[in-house]
């Protein structure tokens, strides 16, 4: 029994060390690595790169800050206006600040947005209240076996409203329960467009409330197209409701009113591991994908057709000096946090390669010397040796903290 309890303690110690020691290491030795900020210039018809405080064009010419601002006039409109350098027209198009503002949009997605705990309870706003301000409703809805509205004050289901919405959903062919429910659950938006929802059969619906009544549209979706994430947007141009990521790693938008699904010419977007930023302006969309050690920027025109593409990779953390040293010390790392998820878990990451074997063998030998001094029977310590061989520094510390000292 006491031997079992020792192995449990050794296990706990290994777990603890494999969380803390690598963490200490990275905090001490990791060097920052900024990814480049790349945008398509409507002046150059090419990409402009900003890396830290240095700015270049795509041919490698260094740019001053002012030059950089001039090459991206739509992004830096206000600054250029102060300088008096804002052009009257670009590409034969007369510059109207109102028009420019209307076409400006910014969207940002992080893998964490998909991997986050969320209670599936949302406020359904009144879309046409006739008031300037959007008001927070008194109730929240869920879509399980039916659509239910729960009144917050009494914590009870509002029967009539629930029945009404459920009936209309059924009529439109909604298969309960909902899989994805996406909306903008805040009163701080220009107007309310309700929620984009997928049902259990992966059908797509638009649900909102107009003057207290359900407005529910089923969206025509090509056969086989399934979505794994939907992000609603509130842009001033009112061109589309949301971005949708498909199971096949494509990016779609859903246009307003016509409910057309338009596919972006982006290949194999990995929402679990890549950040996505979309800058929209009068002429282009810059679709920026950011992975751990690469970025891809695709410039689209206003018809969502690809204009140009920029790719860059750099050394990942594991490939840099501090990562290589790491690989000689630690056989693996466990973290409670993950940059791709809001969930806490024991995230296990094995160190690539087998450099750590050297240290592990040294530690096995070191343990052998320690035991030799203690004059013990080696046969009783074979499990400890294998623990050190596998877990290296963690196991070495653990078996020596919880000493294998048992009597016959």
């Amino acid at each position: 029994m006491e031997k079992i309890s020792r192995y449990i303690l050794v296990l706990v110690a290994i777990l603890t060390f494999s969380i803390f020691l690598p963490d200490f290491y990275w905090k001490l030795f990791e060097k920052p690595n900024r990814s480049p900020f790349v945008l398509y210039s409507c002046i150059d018809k090419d990409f402009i790169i900003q890396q830290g405080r240095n700015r270049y064009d795509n041919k490698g010419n260094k740019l001053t800050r002012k030059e950089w601002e001039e090459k991206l006039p739509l992004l830096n409109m206000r600054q250029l206006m102060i300088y008096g350098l804002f052009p009257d027209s670009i590409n034969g198009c007369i510059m109207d600040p109102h028009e420019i503002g209307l076409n400006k949009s910014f969207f940002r997605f992080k893998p964490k947005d998909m991997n986050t705990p969320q209670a599936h309870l949302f406020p359904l706003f009144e879309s046409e209240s006739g008031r300037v301000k959007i008001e927070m409703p008194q109730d929240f809805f869920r879509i399980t076996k039916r659509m239910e509205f729960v009144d917050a004050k009494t914590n009870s289901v509002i029967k009539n409203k629930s029945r009404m919405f459920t009936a209309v959903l059924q009529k439109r062919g909604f298969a309960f329960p909902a899989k994805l429910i996406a909306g903008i659950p805040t009163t701080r938006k220009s107007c309310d467009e309700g929620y984009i929802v997928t049902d259990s059969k992966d059908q797509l619906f638009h649900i909102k409330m107009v003057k207290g009544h359900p407005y529910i549209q089923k969206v025509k979706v090509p056969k086989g197209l399934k979505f794994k994430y939907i992000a609603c947007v509130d842009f001033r141009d009112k061109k589309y409701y949301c971005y949708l990521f498909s199971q096949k790693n494509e990016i779609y938008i859903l246009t307003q009113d016509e409910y057309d699904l338009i596919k972006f010419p982006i290949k194999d977007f990995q929402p679990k591991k890549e950040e996505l930023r979309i800058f929209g302006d009068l002429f282009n969309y810059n679709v920026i994908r950011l992975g751990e050690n690469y970025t891809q920027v695709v410039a689209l025109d206003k018809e969502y057709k690809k204009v140009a593409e920029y790719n860059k990779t750099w050394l990942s953390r594991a490939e840099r000096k501090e990562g290589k040293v790491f690989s000689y010390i630690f056989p693996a790392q466990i973290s409670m946090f993950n940059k791709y998820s809001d969930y806490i878990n024991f995230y296990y990451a094995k160190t690539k390669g087998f450099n750590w074997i050297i240290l592990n063998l040294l530690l096995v030998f070191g343990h052998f010397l320690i035991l030799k001094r203690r004059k013990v029977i080696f046969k009783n310590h074979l499990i400890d040796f294998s623990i050190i061989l596998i877990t290296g520094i963690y196991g070495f510390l653990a078996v020596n903290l919880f000493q294998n000292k048992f009597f016959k």
Partner: protein
Amino acid sequence: MWKSIIFKEWLKVRWYLIGATLLLGVFVSYIFINVKHDITFQDANNLWYLILFKKYQFFGLIKYLPLLVGIGIAAAQYVPEIVSKRVKLSFHLPVNENKMLLMMLGFGNLSLLICFSIVFSIFISLSNCFFAYEIVNEAIITIIPWLLGGIAAYSLVGLIVMEPIWMYKIFYLVVTSMFIPLYYERGITGAYKPVNLTLAIITLLISVSLLFSAYRFRKGEM
């Protein structure tokens, strides 16, 4: 015979246990007095909104209480045993030593479990009065690791108290103070969902850790 051991453990921890249960009870009551106050002053829907989308933890007040209770019960139960090495008396009783220890730590774990279950079920039923089950569910997921942390701390403090060698007491304290924070990471509400079961299993496993240091005590390590 077993009744006698339970009787002895009960004598040691009864006031701490009753006190801890009351303390937790007071805090849980305070949480819901706050909830009631918030609903009265800023409308229930705003409070729901904060909880659902701003990840406000209306129960955050009790976070470290189970930890304190776990440490307190362990101290109440095991410190009297090592004062004047009194645990020798227990080892000398005509009972297998490990069975005796398992009985002791079983009692401690069970009393913690009972204390936590009482308070936790009060918390859940009050939550159900005010909030939809989605909110209650997330709250439960968030509180479970805090409770498990209290139970794990109980086991590891027992290990430290019983360890006969001071240097190792300190080593174990270091490992414990690195390990216990794993139950109290600053995650958002519901973040512990994928790991709660693993933590529960680990907590269950370390509940026997006392056997190790007690063995070292019995064999006269010094």
